[in-house]
């Protein structure tokens, strides 16, 4: 680890590449880069550089390799597993300045963006042509295409439209040695290894993606959005399981529990039925006839499960209002405690009712506050623990409660992460999901691209050389 190492001699060569204004090394600037939105683990870089082009990124990487300095790519820093944390210190390569849309190719339904472009800006740029970029993580107004690619981000509408890897047609990547690769971008499905699907979701460990061809998806012709309230969480989760088992795939199927309802009521003055313990947001989209048929099935299931009330949006304004609780729920939780950790695990959707019971029991056992707001249709849980990260005892309990939930996900045949990634948060948990033999395959994937261990070190694969001894130092109390 390079903690305490003076980076004074690094500044001039890096400034020569990107300009002095784009090298940050003062303590107050660096502090903002010592973690991403997962604040339990922290590690401060020595220098942050802000390149403006692929060529500059390649030059920075070549310089870091020549000096044996670790480097970590970073987008907007909205990641929730510490993937953009400079685990061994060194240089953070921020894509903040690489924020240009380079080409909009409407006839071929694709758009070429620099990796620092915010997700939502892509959809905004093509809305006038009747298209959008389908992955829609909750952070989409700020999270970048590069970050979405690194984490293979999802979002509420990935139930129908798929995650980021389904929507990246090609990319430009600076290899771990500083070579520039252009992969794909043309007609999909050609011969050769599908490296793009491997790189998307590799958490920035196989190289630094600098540009991407994003697939543009037609905006839905017709949408029905409904918000159902239930007097128990179990009724809501059973509704989800029944909708999925019926074979219906809505565009979105999102669940919020009382913890979230209380927070959004206080923050935005939203009104829900007094007995509501859970809300289920359902969105069906497509051709009008199909959507109406699909929603009729959904509504029948919701009513059969005893929904207290089903509100259906009559226009776009009403639709946006129904989405407020889902979109603003996490932010509203800021009223409850100084810190929030949003956990991420996946289970088979039929197991949702018993899993939610387990989450509440664990929160009670560890004495931590929990609220749930998650992608129910995908079985992708997000228990949000609220706590005070200045208290080490609370931090410990939150971490242990999170691990108990992930263990249960695995027991039910699920996964340790559905969209937040492994990062540093779940390095150890990888060993619970995968055997040594399984991890051998993971290592082969990494070695195919990354042999120097400088590019975003200590992520994804547990027990890497030079990382284990530092894990204890990352986890600390907020200062």
């Amino acid at each position, binding site marked *: 680890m390079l903690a305490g190492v003076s980076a004074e001699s690094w500044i001039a060569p890096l400034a020569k590449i990107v300009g002095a204004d784009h090298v940050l090394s003062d303590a107050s600037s660096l502090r903002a880069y010592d973690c991403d939105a997962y604040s339990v683990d922290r590690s401060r870089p020595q220098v942050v550089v802000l390149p403006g082009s692929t060529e500059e990124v390649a030059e920075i990487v070549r310089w870091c390799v020549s000096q044996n300095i670790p480097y970590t790519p970073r987008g907007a820093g909205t990641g929730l597993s510490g993937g953009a944390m400079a685990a061994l210190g060194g240089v953070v390569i921020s894509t903040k300045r690489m924020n240009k849309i380079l080409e909009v190719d409407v006839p071929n339904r694709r758009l070429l963006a620099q990796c620092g472009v915010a997700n939502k800006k892509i959809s905004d740029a093509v809305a006038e042509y009747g298209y959008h970029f389908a992955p829609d993580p909750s952070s989409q107004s700020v999270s970048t295409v590069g970050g979405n690619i690194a984490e293979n981000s999802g979002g509420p509408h990935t139930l129908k439209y798929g995650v980021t890897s389904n929507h990246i047609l090609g990319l430009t990547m600076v290899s771990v040695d500083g070579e520039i690769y252009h992969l794909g971008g043309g007609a999909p499905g050609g011969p*050769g290894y599908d490296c793009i*699907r491997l790189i998307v979701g590799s958490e920035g460990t196989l190289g630094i993606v600098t540009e991407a061809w994003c697939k543009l998806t037609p905006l839905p012709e017709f949408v029905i959005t409904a918000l159902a309230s239930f007097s128990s969480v179990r009724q809501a989760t059973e509704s989800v399981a029944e909708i999925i*088992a019926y074979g219906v795939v809505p565009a979105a199927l999102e669940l919020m529990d009382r913890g979230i309802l209380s927070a959004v009521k206080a923050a935005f003055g939203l009104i829900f039925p007094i007995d509501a313990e859970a809300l289920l947001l359902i969105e069906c989209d497509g051709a009008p006839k199909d959507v109406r048929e699909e929603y009729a099935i959904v509504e029948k299931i919701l009513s059969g499960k005893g929904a207290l009330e089903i509100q259906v949006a009559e226009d776009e304004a009403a639709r946006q209002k129904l989405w407020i609780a889902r979109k603003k729920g996490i932010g509203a939780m800021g009223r409850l405690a100084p810190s929030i950790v949003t956990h991420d695990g996946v289970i088979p959707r*039929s197991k949702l009712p018993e899993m939610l019971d387990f989450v509440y029991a664990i929160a009670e056992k560890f004495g931590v506050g929990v609220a749930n707001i998650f992608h129910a249709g995908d079985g*992708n849980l997000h228990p949000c623990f609220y706590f005070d990260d200045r208290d080490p005892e609370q931090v410990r309990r939150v971490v242990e409660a999170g691990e108990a939930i992930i263990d249960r996900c695995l027991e039910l045949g699920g996964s340790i992460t*559905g969209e937040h990634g492994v990062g540093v948060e779940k390095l150890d948990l990888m060993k619970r999901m995968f*055997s040594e033999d*399984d991890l051998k395959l993971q290592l082969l994937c990494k070695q195919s691209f990354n042999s120097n261990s400088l590019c975003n070190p200590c992520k994804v694969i547990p027990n890497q050389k030079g990382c284990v001894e530092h894990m204890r130092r990352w986890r600390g109390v907020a200062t």
Partner: protein
Amino acid sequence: MRRTYAAMARGGDLNEGIFCDPANMVAEIDATLGLRAVAWGLAANQVGLPHGSACLADDPGSGFDSKMTIRQAIDWNLPHLLEGKFGNWTDWILGMTIRLADGTVSKSGSRVVKNVAGYDAHKLLVGARGTLGTILRVAVRIYPISSIQYYSTLALAGADLRNLQSCWEKSDVHIFRVLPSDFESAREQYGDCILYALESSQTLWLSQKPEAIPGSWVRTFSKGKEQLPELPELDRRLLQRMKSVFDPNGKLPSWEATFVR
């Protein structure tokens, strides 16, 4: 009691045929099973894989695809008739059990529909022709059979698939995929040579080899056997590097050996 995916993979019991979980719309399948056997097995639960007679036969029980296994279909990542609607094998595969070159049996992915734990090695195996490892089992997303049948009917409407099947077995077929903006001009240019045209995925099945245009690719089959494609230099270098990492002693088929010259 049902065993978990992890237990199945680690227990080494790879002889189970199809584990169908319609409640979660996923299945896990022995990769040595034929497409036809899998189709029948899943249909018993009113679900299926939407490859729309993946190998172009109008009768799923005849010719090419009656012999094709799940492993071959994934190894070859063949374009199919419902790609525009349902995507390709890569889009359905959630996880795999793979035998590596040194005999290690490894699992990648899982059996849930959303998962970003670790690298998506299973996606890399799609279309890799068995050169990086041998696929033993696959976990896949499944779809209601009513939906598959509905879109299959649309895709097959008016198509002379018997002619295409006949060409497939007797002569050369060139699968040509272009960017959407080039599809109409390609269709005009190759008019008489078109055996089948699929606008939803901008794919033409041709009896004559087309000229490459930017952004397109061509895969040539001679009597059902695929010929070695030309790859860009960068793709070739990456392919060689990955191959040397996954199979340093050359125990698995080489990329070249999996094609007919």
